[in-house]
């Protein structure tokens, strides 16, 4: 299945739902609800509440994250919001402000 890619100049204001991997290089505002994997690349900006299976963040996320499997904050990422996931990985150099809930 083709990946969904939101390119770096693209701004989506609204809601993204579906059952497919999502790569964010641009900006998504609103709400994201997926059953698969989200990758926020360095240029990517998510200003949204996120529901997903896994999320890997190199860029910026502002909003609450709920991952059914894993949330991974890579170095240099910036995350503001609460994270709820059974596994949460925060790399050295990541910037994070918010609550962590691993009760899943």
């Amino acid at each position, binding site marked *: *299945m*083709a*990946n*969904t*890619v*939101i*390119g*770096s*100049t*693209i*701004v*989506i*204001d*609204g*809601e*993204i*739902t*579906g*059952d*497919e*991997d*999502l*790569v964010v290089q*641009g900006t998504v505002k*609103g709400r994201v609800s997926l059953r*698969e*994997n989200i*990758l926020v*690349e*360095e240029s990517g900006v998510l200003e949204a509440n996120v529901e997903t299976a*896994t999320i*890997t963040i*190199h860029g910026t996320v502002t909003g609450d994250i709920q991952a059914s499997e*894993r949330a*991974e904050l*890579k170095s240099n990422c910036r995350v503001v919001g609460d994270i709820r996931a059974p596994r949460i990985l925060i790399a050295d150099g990541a910037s994070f402000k918010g609550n962590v809930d691993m009760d899943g």
Partner: protein
Amino acid sequence: MASRQSGSIITTTEALTIIGQGIHVHGQIHGEEDLRIEGRVEGSISLTETVHVAESGVVVATVDARDVVVSGIVVGNVSATNSVSLEPGAKLIGDISTPRLIIADGAAFRGNVAMTEGGAPVPRARATAGARSTGSRPRPAAASSASARPAVAPPRPGPASARHPLRVRESARLRAWRRFGRRRPPAAPMMR
């Protein structure tokens, strides 16, 4: 730069924006790069480049772009600064405004067409278009180049008539049209 440690995580460096088949976007999309839609988009799309609605794509939205290529389904008004192309199998319900329009055999379309070339009315005039009004200009020889962007039409009285530039002179034609048993007047909004 993308991590590669877990099997399912995605790696990609493609610049092209794709809304995949399993994805549904509800809202506004704008940007300055090509967009390929294989899934579903509802709302509005505004791009400076090409929108390609693939065979599996369903767009229920107002579409504004430089070029619009439809192989799937679009319900909504489409306006392009260069071209609109309906490929075989495409279905479009809505009004089209573009300097160049290509409808292939096997495409299905219902709606108004306003070709915006050579001082013809520019429907739904955009803010960018209004900025460079230079009065009448000789008609470009061909619609081929994007730089031959049509002269901007004189300001139209109101948004309603700007939206349906054909209505002004349509009454006679409309009557004739009705004679053929058409159910709705052609300028009637297709949606909502």
